[in-house]
């Protein structure tokens, strides 16, 4: 692929991880919503009849948790808070109002994406633990009923927060043109990289390319 005006942002393995997660999360979230909002019980049909959906949901939930652990290892070093995150927060209104121009010193992920990362990490972990407690076929009988009730409430609340967070994530992908393509093909344009992740471009993309850049010039 001609990389003269595009740069690799997400490697194949990481993209595969992301989209496998999307597929599993979609199935788990839809079936879960069908039980939280019974008026929307048809959402559970993505996993077949309701009995089958109930059977599969927790196993798929475990797959989501395992994928999450892989994601943690792969992405955590890009998502540690740094001092320059403050610049993004101070310009949050400009960011949301689509006013470009300021140099926000954004690394591979901006502060909002880091919040998303840690939000997803903590919420899916909470869903994993509470999900085991309410898993009637294998674990729920080992917990007193008041604990199961609390776990049910916590599981629902965490799932709601997570799904709303993910809706925000999906919207940002649609709003920021080039990002969904970036997660599918792995490549973003140089202009995109400079506009949305200037510090990442300056500190990681350019230095890695220096030999080839010299060759081209």
């Amino acid at each position: 692929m001609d990389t003269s005006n595009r740069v690799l942002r997400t490697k194949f393995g990481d993209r595969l991880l992301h989209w496998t997660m999307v597929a599993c999360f979609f199935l788990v979230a839809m079936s879960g919503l069908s039980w939280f909002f019974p008026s929307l019980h048809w959402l559970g049909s993505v996993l077949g009849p309701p009995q089958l959906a109930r059977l599969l949901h927790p196993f798929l939930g475990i797959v989501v948790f395992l994928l999450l652990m892989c994601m943690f290892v792969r992405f955590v070093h890009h998502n540690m808070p740094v001092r320059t995150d403050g610049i993004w927060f101070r310009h949050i209104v400009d960011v949301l109002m689509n006013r470009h121009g300021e140099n926000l010193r954004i690394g591979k992920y901006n502060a909002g994406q880091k919040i998303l990362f840690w939000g997803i990490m903590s919420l899916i972990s909470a869903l994993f633990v509470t999900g085991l407690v309410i898993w009637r076929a294998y674990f729920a009988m080992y917990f007193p009923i008041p604990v199961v009730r609390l776990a049910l409430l916590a599981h629902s609340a965490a799932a709601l927060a997570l799904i709303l967070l993910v809706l925000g994530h999906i919207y940002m992908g649609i709003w920021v043109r080039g990002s969904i393509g970036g997660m599918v093909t792995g490549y973003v344009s140089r202009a995109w990289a400079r506009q949305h992740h200037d510090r990442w471009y300056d500190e990681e993309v350019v230095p890695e390319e220096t030999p080839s850049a010299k060759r081209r010039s």
Partner: protein
Amino acid sequence: MSMQSQDIIRRSATNGFTPTPQARSHETEVAKLIDVSLCTGCKGCQVACSEWNDLRDEVGHNVGVYDNPADLTSETWTVIRFDEVEDESDKLEWLLRKEGCMHCEEPGCLKACPSPGAILQFANGIVDFQSEQCIGCGYCIAGCPFDIPRISEKDNRAYKCTLCADRVAVGQEPACVKTCPTGAIAFGSKAEMKDLAADRVGELKSRGHEGAGLYDPAGVGGTHVMYVLTHADKPELYHRLPANPSISPIVRGWKEWLKPVGALGFIATVAGAFAHYMGVGPNTTDETPHPDPEPEKELEVEGADHGPAEDRRDA
């Protein structure tokens, strides 16, 4: 009684804005009254229940008490509880209680159930599980204030006493009532059973049981299985029968608070995103050359045709 006793007044996981048919005339509420002071613990009711409902639970083992099986199961819907209690004067009392579904007026199982129509409440007060609709999640177990429903390991569905809804529908009393040799279990309209209970409580009081009374707990709107207890002031003595049962505030919070808040959260999030997109427009990339005099600059200009390609990628 006609088949009208099968009129459904509440259906699990069904929106309150779309209630079940309600236009037909009032139907008498039924109740089972269990007088613990007349129970001899013969377990005839357990046998009759198994026989009528065609339940064949494993024959239990002696675990040191007379309760057999040791607990309710998906195939044992009623169990006589035997509790040995010593009062202040060291006098031993053997308290018996036939445990099973209480058929609450406000059923916690039905509130918690996520499967439409898996739990029904009939106009006569009977709360019945529809096994065909049950998905085996066990939420009914968390919702029940009395710890009654059990999930079968054979088919992953929840079971409990039906109050012999099939018998009651054709004008018969439940199997346990029919078989009880001491007359400790009575069945009729709820009003009649309350009158009968008042007589029995009066008699027990006249015989010195000052704490005698009717157990028809208001916290769940009353029940369609009631007890006459000799110690109604201390129901916990009867195998931890709760003094003030009600649907747990956690279950209420989950169903009555988190659910509407969650629905609003969804609407607000989707509406907010849409409004933002309409107001601000897509966040497109400015593809004009970067001001820094970098080697890539020329390439960037040459590659001006990558604009359309990028649009295509976004599509």
